[in-house]
């Protein structure tokens, strides 16, 4: 379809702004740009139709099943968006006098209390804008903690080889060296290898539990103890929290700092890539280092306090992706103490249900009960029929299903990681199971057909190599 720029006609426009009602001489030409930017010139109808057409070529949670592993694509409740649009939140200037922003501060304060309780932490910050940003912030807290004790030699962060790529990347940005810890054949941390690696240079360990293969690491207490005994701290990557809310808390497993993906676990929409929120929680001893300002409460109300001399500083403008926090707070208020564990229970149920009805034909990477997601390996299918994880994923597209996460975690070959979430009804799972089974059948009988798929999507398989080799990154006028 056409680009906005290709639809553009010189002279067309929307009438958005009035003529300026004061006259003042404009700046000298020496301060001004030589040429106006090429922006589209279109009527409102044309813009509206353009984006409606683009929307039709976009698959969101609202368009169908979205079992994208590790991304927790649950339904995004509409009340959350409505609350985020309330003028008392959306129209408040971040630098308004404190007494005129009490509603916003109250919301942040409540969110702090609720998310600290859910994670078993003592305090939160909502400045980080996304999961990876939360990781970076959490690692900075760990760094500041060690430095405050005069310990400048702890330069290493231990990261399992099954971890999400953001973990090592965040550690690197925080100035640490990354030490990869191998996984056991059952997908869990090799505690012997961990024991070998943890020493006086260890700043901390980054881990998610359930881990990236969807299994709860039963040795978690031993793992966090090994790190603590070596003087390091334990960082919990909240990517998989949807499996255990209200059932097990990171704080009770021995973690010292966590990040949450409010756009995964707490139902805020992902917007085609963002904005998210990577809220970070920490135990008492890391509190002095939290980003500034923090929200406090006394008899006069709520305050923004830059009262933390040991703070790592700021990691973002103002107070984070505030309206995302409002959505997540709305969600927590809706579910409450009963609904939060119920959400996790049903996420795990839906996942086990799907896995159980597929494991007789698809090979599971780890054939034990899963938590909220499971990983299958198509290694044998690839060897025997030349049908890859990619082929299966692309075949799902023709069936209106967003594919699972492909080729992750890296420790599983030809991996497909499936996370159904709790907000899907049984018949959607049954349909997906049937589609998966049909694709498997096709792989046995007509494998070459799978290489051609998808056939019915707005575009078909793309030349990605060509895109990277000859980057064409903007429209040329």
């Amino acid at each position: 379809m056409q680009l906005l720029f290709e639809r553009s006609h010189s002279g067309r426009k929307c009438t958005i702004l009035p003529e300026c009602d004061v006259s003042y001489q404009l700046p000298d030409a020496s301060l001004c740009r030589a040429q106006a930017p090429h922006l589209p010139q279109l009527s409102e109808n044309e813009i509206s139709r353009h984006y409606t057409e683009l929307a039709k070529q976009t698959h969101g949670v609202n368009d169908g099943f979205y079992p994208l592993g590790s991304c927790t694509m649950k339904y995004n409740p509409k009340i959350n968006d409505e609350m985020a649009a309330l003028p008392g939140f959306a129209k408040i200037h971040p630098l308004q006098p404190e007494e005129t922003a009490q509603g916003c501060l109250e919301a942040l304060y409540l969110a702090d209390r609720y998310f600290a309780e859910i994670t078993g932490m003592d305090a939160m910050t909502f400045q980080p804008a996304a999961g990876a940003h939360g990781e970076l912030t959490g690692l900075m807290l760990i760094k500041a903690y060690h430095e405050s004790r005069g310990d400048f030699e702890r330069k290493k962060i231990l990261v399992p080889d099954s971890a999400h790529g953001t973990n090592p990347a965040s550690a690197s940005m925080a100035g640490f060296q990354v030490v990869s810890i191998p996984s056991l054949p059952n997908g869990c941390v090799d505690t012997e290898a961990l024991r070998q690696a943890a020493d006086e240079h260890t700043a901390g360990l980054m881990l998610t539990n359930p881990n990236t293969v969807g299994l709860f690491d039963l040795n978690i207490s031993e793992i966090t103890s090994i790190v603590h005994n070596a003087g390091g701290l334990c960082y919990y990557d909240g990517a998989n929290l949807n499996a255990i809310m209200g059932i097990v808390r990171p704080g009770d497993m021995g973690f010292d700092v966590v990040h949450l993906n409010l756009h995964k676990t707490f139902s805020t929409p992902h917007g085609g890539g963002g904005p998210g929120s990577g809220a970070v929680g920490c135990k008492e001893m890391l509190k002095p280092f939290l980003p500034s300002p923090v929200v406090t409460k006394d008899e006069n109300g709520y305050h923004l306090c830059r009262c933390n001399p040991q703070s790592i500083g700021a990691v973002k403008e103002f107070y984070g992706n505030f309206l995302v926090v409002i959505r997540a707070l709305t969600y927590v208020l809706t579910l409450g103490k009963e609904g939060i564990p119920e959400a996790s229970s049903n996420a795990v149920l839906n996942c086990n249900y799907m896995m159980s009805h597929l494991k007789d034909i698809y090979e599971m990477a780890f054939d034990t009960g899963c938590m909220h997601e499971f990983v299958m390996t198509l290694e044998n299918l690839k060897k025997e029929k030349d049908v890859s994880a990619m082929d299966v994923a692309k075949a799902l597209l023709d069936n209106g299903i967003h594919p699972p996460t492909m080729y992750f975690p890296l420790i599983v070959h030809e991996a497909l990681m499936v996370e159904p979430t709790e907000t899907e009804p049984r018949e959607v799972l049954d349909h997906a199971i049937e589609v998966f089974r049909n694709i498997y059948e096709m792989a046995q009988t007509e494998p070459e057909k799978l290489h051609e798929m998808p056939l019915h999507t707005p575009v078909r398989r793309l030349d990605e190599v060509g895109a990277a080799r000859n980057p064409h990154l903007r429209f040329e006028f």
Partner: protein
Amino acid sequence: MGSYIPSTVKERQEMLESIGLSSIDQLFSHIPEELKLDRELDLPSGKSEMEVSRVMNNIASHSVVFDSIFRGAGAYDHYIPSIVKSVTGKEEFVTAYTPYQAEISQGVLQSIFEYQTMICELTGMDVSNASVYDGATAAAEAVNMCCERSRQVVFCSEAAHPDNIRVIKTYCWASGHQLVMVPVKDGKTDLSQIAGQLDKKTGACLYIQSPNFFGQIEDVQQAAELIHSVGAKLICACNPIALGLLKTPAEQGADIAVGEGQPLGMPLSFGGPYLGFMATTSAMMRKLPGRIVGQTTDVDGKRAFVLTLQAREQHIRREKASSNICSNQALCAMTASVYLAAVGPDGLRQAACSCYQKAHYLAEQLSQIEGVSLRYTGSFFHEFVTDQPDAAKVLDALQKEGILGGLPLEDGGILWCATEKNTKEDIDRVVEIVRKELM
């Protein structure tokens, strides 16, 4: 209690039985008992939608919504066209994830490609990414782009937005880069102060914002020439509305243009979500952090768009990636695109000219009040600083009239801002209230 789980208790039981289980608890039976929470979460009970709405409305009502805003300082009150809210509220865009599966994500991918084009047009640069979190993290990421093994000294203007400076400081501390602050003189970056500290071997970059925190238009070109003389890079933070009128970072020799995209259709939102935009030269393309969308073709030869140059990114390069960024601000980037499409080239210039003219009118009127003076004499865009005897008194008086006045600075000054939303009538009213207070 509220819930979004479709399956009934009966259905859940049937599902459990179909996989050989009898209770939900069995799904968690392998988790050691001593780890499990042996109590309910200490949270309120769940609520119906109507009750939640009541609670949240009540909380929101504790904030004061100002109809008339003369405060900027990094968050600007601009008019948001209706089409912006309508388009960015479409559920397909709102509820999609990052467009990993290009075949069913062409809508999001094409919109990002269009956004990248518009950011290149605004800034004059060659390449834009698909967004980062905000202006401050864009600045910090740009600094990281410039630092190399031997070049680790970062110069940062003290006239930049305080939050941007704070974030750059935090990132530099974490990664071990050396930060040198460049002082302010007469409201602008005093470039003469760094001439002696520039080193051909260690200099990485200079970060300068124009218009700066005080609203002053900096001599970016001179800054670029200075920093380029030692082979280091110039990072220029800019205001996207101002770029409807003022010189682009590219025209002034910047290597990287960054900025806060909030003025392009995003509400004030108590500080977020906003939009960090980043654009650079072709030479530095492969150092850009974050997602980038490229044009390609599908197997049938049809034009299509796809996430590209992924060899820079964390999911491929892990600890060697150019940044850890994964989620960005995609929907905010789309907001900016729709805003720019709606106002078009003429409308953007009109918004910029209105901001400029109204701010200058306000400055002129305020400075005619006895006791009020403009602090700086340099050119400014839509923000400026005044000195007056009692800032708190003036701002309180405005607040009583439902007007959010300028930002009080620690040294007694007030940083004012005017946008196209402030009518002449509003401005005259502000001036009258200030005059009365200072009489």
